[in-house]
């Protein structure tokens, strides 16, 4: 693959990653959010595939396929199942910060992500490390979604957004941290989502709702 094409494709995948993160913040319909999340998984897999092709690494290619299956297939499917069980509550109705303000907040987070990733770029300037800022921004936006959204499912997506961003940073900075650890990380994420999905079901069984405003029993 020529260098120009590599950079083009890398940037494109990063652009989609960023755009999908913003769209999650933007849209209210949970079904759309899940679809956008699946698209982000696709972009992440594409990113890793581009890196694999660039380095000619078969192992990394296999990892890309794994990411595709997990993040564009299994996780969205789990989320959809949770949504199907949710019944009426298909919209994020009252986020703590309204959508317009959270979009502007995301603009600030972008700049923050850019600032934070400066030392990382300085260590080893390359097209891949320059794109780390995108991963950082996705992490920050994910954290923001996690903190400000009230639907259980939106929080779940926020968590996964963070995780996608972290994975992107991981692969952009180095080509992974060893297969055992990577498998462990993926398994942990999958299990965490499964646990949270079961908890949403239980929450509905006990509260009749997944609006986290209902979580008011425990406080000081």
């Amino acid at each position: 693959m020529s260098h120009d094409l590599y950079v083009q494709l890398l940037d494109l995948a990063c652009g989609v990653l960023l755009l999908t993160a913003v769209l999650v913040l933007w849209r209210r319909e949970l079904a759309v959010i899940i679809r956008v999340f699946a698209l982000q998984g696709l972009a992440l897999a594409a990113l890793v595939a581009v890196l694999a092709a660039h380095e000619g690494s078969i192992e990394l290619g296999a990892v890309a396929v794994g990411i595709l299956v997990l993040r564009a297939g299994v996780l969205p499917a789990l989320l959809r199942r949770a949504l199907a069980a949710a019944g009426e509550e298909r919209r994020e109705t009252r986020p703590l910060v309204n959508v317009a303000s959270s979009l502007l907040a995301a603009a600030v987070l972008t700049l923050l992500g850019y600032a934070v990733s400066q030392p990382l770029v300085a260590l080893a300037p390359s097209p891949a490390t320059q794109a780390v800022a995108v991963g950082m921004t996705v992490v920050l936006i994910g954290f923001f979604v996690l903190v400000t959204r009230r639907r259980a499912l939106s929080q779940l997506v926020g968590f996964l957004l963070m995780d996608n961003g972290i994975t992107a940073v991981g692969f952009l900075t180095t080509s992974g941290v060893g297969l055992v650890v990577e498998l462990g990380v993926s398994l942990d994420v999958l299990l965490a989502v499964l646990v949270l999905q079961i908890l949403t079901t239980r929450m509905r069984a006990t509260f009749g709702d997944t609006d986290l405003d209902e979580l008011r029993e425990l406080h000081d």
Partner: protein
Amino acid sequence: MNALGVIGGVLQFVLVVAGSPFLVGVMRQVRARLEGRAGAGIGQPWRDLRKLLRKESITPRGTSEVFRIAPLVLVATTVVVAIVAPFVTTASAVDSVADLFAVVALLALGTVALALAGLDTGTAFGGMGASREMTIIALVEPTLLVSIFALSVRVGSTNLGAIVTSTLQDPARVISPVSLLAAVALVVVIIAETGRLPVDNPSTHLELTMVHEAMILEYAGRDLGLVEWASAMRLTAFLGLLANLFVPWGIATAATPVALLAGVAAFVIKVVLLGVLLSAGEVFLAKLRLFRVPELLAGSFLLSLLAVTASFFLAQPH
């Protein structure tokens, strides 16, 4: 100022001034057909204009010069943009005005003039329309600036002609994230700025929702004709900018008859295509509630900002 620029300027002037009502006609016709109506034909806006221009203009009592001058300012600024922007040729008749900031400022000037006129009438609708328009423009103008600025970063110049030329030389640039993000942001603000669905409905006079129409409610006759005409030209100019910033192919780079002819044809095709897409899209859209509009615009502002940051922090090919 060179020959190409002068010829281009004349051609663009003629095309935009004469053609823009037809563009509106085409868009209305497409919409009518998609909705199962026969439609009035693409010449109808011209016929309307002719009728309006022949009529005497009436100014409401108590209005000042602002009300009378506003349509002229609107038309004048739009015509200047139509002449200098790189629509048919990459060179510009007045090169220093074909600048990102100058063009955006000119377009904003027209909008502000109209908003002032709306306030000047002193009626409830005029004031309401003006205040709504200002709410929208407060987010639209920065977005417009920032998103075109994102494109200009790699060129190193804010001259629109230079941006278009450099895209011509390096076509791969179009699929970069910078372009894509900026394109999405621009589409959204252009829809808002030209008062199309889902931000504003150009074909309604329902007082609860109208924005643009509310401002010009008091105009009649010749003045109304000018305002309508200028709106059509603005729409054409915006679509032309959108088309040439992202898909500049076909634009004339030399002053040969063939190249110029190709430039004119490409411009007409691109703008009409965009117009058709826009009106076809409108059929499937409902108007957004007014207080959801800032959300849409904040989103597009964010996208344009992302485009700028991406143009700084992503690696450039080669």
